[in-house]
């Protein structure tokens, strides 16, 4: 479906095509990561991201498929072949939510562990480890035990340790999910810089769109065990094709078919006019309308029923947001509106009240799917 499903070229580092079954849930994915590239794997909880990562790391057995790194087969199953290179010989690093630093080793020895295990002399390994700790801005804490470090510091050591082992591919499983928001915002650029500098080929599993925007070159969207979309971060988030991606990107997405008058018609009869992006879709084709939450206007009730670009809905929840107040709609969980507190007060909007919304034609983008 995408440009990057072209034939693997010489810069391809990891190439995986695999199927994993866990109970009645299955992951069936194809992905390819280029040398030095950071691919973010985004998806809702339970979409199979971590399962996919576990399979790539060789920790979860696959049902069929093949995983290669630089052309070397790491996992293969199917057609009578069954091969799994054990984790210590894969050259695939793994860093999860928890730093899991070895509690009995100092920060320095934790970082030196990888190089040392790979046969590098202790003195050299410790010297390298010192450099890595400097690279993650932890100079002076070399001799601390993990218990004497804060959560953010521990995760930095874990990152340094993962990079020091010089993995051919680094798998990051929500590495910033367990640290607090402020620490995460400090670590994100650091992570980006270190990955870029070391040209580490990385797959980053996250459900935080900020991780993808700051750290990744490319995103792959995963849903129900499938990769439904992949492409450059900006393109995928800029033109979301599913409500999940739209929610990630902070925009609303309504799907329907193109009516003869050029509007989008939803299954419940609402109509949306907007600017058409890309090729003009044919009448009857599946199209989607995208608009920002702040583009929604709260309208005075009555008289709007038959108008396009407007509809009524019951308020499910009111939440504070940076742009005012965010309204979540009952029956339309993917759509949020952002309105000013004044509007909320003027129209006496509360949970359970029915509100009319409208969106200007100029604020809607129509796109063929």
């Amino acid at each position, binding site marked *: 479906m995408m440009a990057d499903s072209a034939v693997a070229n010489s810069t391809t580092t990891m190439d995986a095509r695999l199927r994993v079954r866990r109970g009645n849930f299955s992951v069936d994915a194809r992905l390819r990561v280029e040398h030095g590239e950071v691919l973010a794997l985004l998806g809702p909880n339970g979409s199979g991201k971590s399962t996919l990562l576990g399979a790539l*790391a060789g*920790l979860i057995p696959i049902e069929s498929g093949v995983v290669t790194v630089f052309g070397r087969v790491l996992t293969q199953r199917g057609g009578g072949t069954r091969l799994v290179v*054990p*984790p*210590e*010989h*894969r*050259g*695939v*690093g*793994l860093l999860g939510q928890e730093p*899991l630093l*070895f*509690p*009995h080793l100092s920060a320095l020895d934790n970082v030196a*562990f*990888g190089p040392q*295990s*790979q046969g590098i002399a202790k003195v050299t390994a410790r010297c390298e480890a010192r450099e890595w700790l400097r690279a993650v801005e932890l100079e002076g804490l070399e001799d601390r035990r993990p*218990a004497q470090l804060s959560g953010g510091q521990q995760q930095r050591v874990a990152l340094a*340790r*993962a990079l020091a*082992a010089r*993995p051919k591919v680094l798998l990051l499983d929500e590495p910033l999910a367990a640290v607090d928001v402020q620490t995460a915002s400090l670590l994100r650029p650091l992570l980006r810089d270190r990955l870029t500098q070391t040209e580490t080929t990385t797959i980053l599993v996250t459900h935080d769109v900020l991780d993808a925007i700051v750290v990744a070159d490319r995103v792959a969207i995963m849903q129900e065990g499938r990769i439904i979309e992949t492409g450059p971060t900006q393109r995928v988030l800029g033109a979301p094709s599913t409500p999940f991606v739209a929610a990630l990107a902070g925009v609303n997405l309504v799907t329907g078919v193109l009516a003869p008058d050029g509007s989008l018609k939803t299954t419940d009869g609402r109509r949306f006019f907007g600017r058409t992006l890309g090729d003009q879709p044919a009448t009857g084709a599946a199209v989607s309308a995208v608009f920002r939450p702040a583009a929604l206007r709260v309208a005075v009730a009555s008289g709007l029923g038959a108008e396009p670009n407007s509809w009524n809905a019951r308020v499910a929840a009111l939440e504070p947001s940076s742009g005012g107040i965010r309204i979540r709609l009952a029956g339309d969980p993917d759509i949020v509106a952002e309105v000013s507190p004044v509007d909320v007060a003027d129209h006496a909007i509360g949970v359970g009240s029915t509100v009319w919304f409208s969106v200007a034609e100029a604020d809607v983008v129509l796109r063929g799917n």
Partner: protein
Amino acid sequence: MTGDEVVGVSGAAVRARTSSRSTIPRALYVPAVIGLALLVLPIIGLMSRADWPSVPAAIVSPAAVSALSLSLQTGVAATVLCLIVGIPLAMLIARSGPRVAGVLRTLTTLPLVMPPLVGGIALLYLLGRNGLVGGFLDIAFGIRIPFTTAAVVIAQSFVALPFLVISVEGALRTAGTRFELVAATLGAGRWTTFRRITLPLVIPGLVAGTVLCFARALGEFGATALFAGNAEGVTRTMPLAIYTAFNGAGVSQDSAVALSILLVAVAIVILLFMRSWRPDVAR
């Protein structure tokens, strides 16, 4: 099971540090004190019976010195033997599936619930001159194990090994495999991971198990008496020397009491050593 209690005791001791006394229901004090009395009063009884002026002489008597030195030597040898085979066995149990682990654990703890005397008989039928393996050893190599110092070490290992395996296995299970997995993704082979990650993580359990193992070897009587006999300087360890003195025709029982006090003193030294190695102290 007795073995689980061994591990449970050290675990409870760790928790007791952090929990405050006031959380204990008052009703528990009475049985607790009775339990303590049951354990301590006999020792006091022993002390009260001692003829203290003659104790030093009894302790430095050639018979006592010989028995103590034999006990310490065989105890150390048995402990080393237990460490060499016990750590791998504990690892095997801890990393097996629940069914296999259950079977292995039952087999391991068998000597714990078996009277040591029975163990001695069993060893005799295995390694004795007419035994399953002993007969072969005798004919093929001229090796006769029973009634030698080696037999003492084997008998002590037989009864002491479960203590080591159970504590180390518990520690391994608690430590889990997460750190081992991390080590593997960093490129560490299985042996490196075992040596640099797995073993250091279970040091507290290993030390506790080693001390219990050594203490059990030191106190071993039944299996030794049957399988190794009671020859002075060869197989007469402290417990056997005490038994001999206690039953000795015409000899005062004072000497048995004095030797018992010596054994108790050695045991207390060992336990103090273990305290200083307690995991919560070490960290």
